[in-house]
């Protein structure tokens, strides 16, 4: 009896230590990446980094203001396109998607979710860049939106499904039409989760590079015209990190740190919204 108890005790201890060690290994990756970025990038971050555009190759100084603003615009427009479509599709799937069409939409969303992002970049190039004759930020936004829609559709669906069936019944019993029950009661109750899903989706696409290579292209100058090529932080990192100049490498590290920080802030925001979920979301 005591032998068995001892063995169980030891097994329990060993497993606990193992699980803790594995968790640390998983977190270690993030710590190493962040640490490395701070180490190599933080020293290059100053006021000029955020306010100036790049200087001609070979010269030192300058900043990545164009890329920061570009990422903001491209991701913002992508969210404007992607959020209504993705959330709408998700509500449809959860509330009405039990039939054949729902199955089809769900299947397409899952396939699209697994599509490599560079393929989606090529789609943007084929359908927008090529017909219009030039690269544009808008094409980049559309590519990112396509990336975002299936992601949002599936997370929204999950969140809406979490709303208890009894709430739907209560609304219907009051004489609510079905669409109004879906929007005013069910979707509104799931709003915290939906917003979290949107923020996570935005954080995901903010760091995408491949879909932008064939669409937004990049731009060394400051530009806010969505019909023209535009720089983004991810593109900037790609170009600068693979370039030959020491100064470019420096800026690439700093840009990576800023991008990472941006994604981190959005993720933290998502966390915060989740915690407020069943609070007073109006």
């Amino acid at each position, binding site marked *: 009896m005591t032998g068995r108890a001892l063995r169980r005790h030891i097994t329990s201890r060993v497993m606990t230590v193992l699980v803790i060690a594995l968790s640390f290994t998983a977190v270690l990756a993030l710590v190493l990446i962040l640490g490395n970025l701070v180490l190599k990038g933080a020293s290059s971050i100053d006021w000029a980094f955020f306010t100036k555009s790049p200087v001609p190759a070979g010269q030192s100084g300058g900043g990545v203001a164009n890329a920061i603003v570009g990422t903001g615009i491209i991701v913002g427009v992508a969210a404007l396109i992607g959020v209504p479509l993705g959330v709408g599709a998700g509500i449809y799937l959860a509330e009405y998607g*039990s039939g054949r069409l729902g199955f089809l939409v769900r299947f397409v969303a899952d396939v699209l979710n697994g599509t490599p992002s560079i393929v989606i970049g090529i789609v943007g190039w084929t359908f927008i860049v090529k017909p219009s004759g030039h690269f544009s930020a808008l094409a980049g936004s559309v590519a990112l939106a396509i990336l975002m829609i299936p992601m949002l559709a599936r997370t929204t669906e999950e969140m809406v499904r979490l709303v*208890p069936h*009894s*709430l739907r*019944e*209560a*609304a*219907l*019993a*009051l*004489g*609510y*039409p079905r669409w*109004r029950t879906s929007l005013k*009661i069910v979707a*509104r*109750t799931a*709003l915290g989760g939906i917003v979290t899903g949107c923020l996570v989706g935005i954080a995901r696409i903010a760091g995408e590079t491949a879909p932008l290579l064939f669409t937004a292209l990049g731009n060394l100058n400051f530009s806010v015209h969505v019909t023209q090529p535009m720089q983004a932080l991810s593109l900037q990192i790609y170009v600068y990190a693979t370039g030959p100049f020491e100064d470019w490498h420096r800026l690439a590290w700093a840009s990576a740190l800023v991008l990472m920080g941006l994604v981190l802030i959005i993720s933290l925001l998502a966390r915060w919204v989740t915690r407020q979920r*069943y609070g*007073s*979301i*109006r």
Partner: protein
Amino acid sequence: MVASANTRLQLETAHLTALFGQHRAVRDVSLLFPAHTVTAIIGPSGCGKSTLLRCLNRMHELTPGASVTGEVLLDDVNIYAGDVSPIELRRRVGMVFQRPTPFPTMSIYDNVAAGLRVNGRRPRAEMDDAVARALQQAALWDEVKDRLHASALDLSGGQQQRLCIARAVAPQPEILLLDEPTASLDPAGTQRIEELCHALKRLYTIVIVTHNMQQAARVSDYTAFMYLGSLIEVGRTDELFTKPKLEQTEAYITGRFG
């Protein structure tokens, strides 16, 4: 207290059968619910009493695979006729469920106003009056009048259930359906709901489904006993509980089965 002989028959089922796929959950039930009375439906679990109730406001048909044959007459109009809108119907037939179902994103005020707003906008003052009236009818007004804009989730379980009653009566329905309204409440909460039944039957025709025979005896004027989907016996509550006509009814109310 007890309805007189010439009471207008407001709600009535005629040969009503409710199905889930092939399964007949309610079998050929013909039952009158006299106006301004409380009718209790009793019977063991799974006897079809909740399903019968859900046929009265066409909630039954929302379950996939569910269907109905026979008629439910509200003021002599079959609510299952092709030109009757279930949405309009549900505004005339309010319902309260087993567990409180306040809308979690809405305040106390907005919960009560929800059924009114769905009928179209109305002036602020009129809305305030309607909300206050509904909360008074549900005996909740004194407890919440100073915090109408607090979250409905701040209320206790019993208060939430009375809030649901207020929400159901705010649009001034003709019929009020209560589906085991006290099943999740403590004795004090249960007592308050039972008192409400007495008060509210002046205004509404009430149908209450309950597990609890004492409750049926306390709150209702008429009691219907169901078993395996069929209506076994129906009569005035005092008579059904003291001199049941059928052996089966007597066996159930004396606790010998069910």
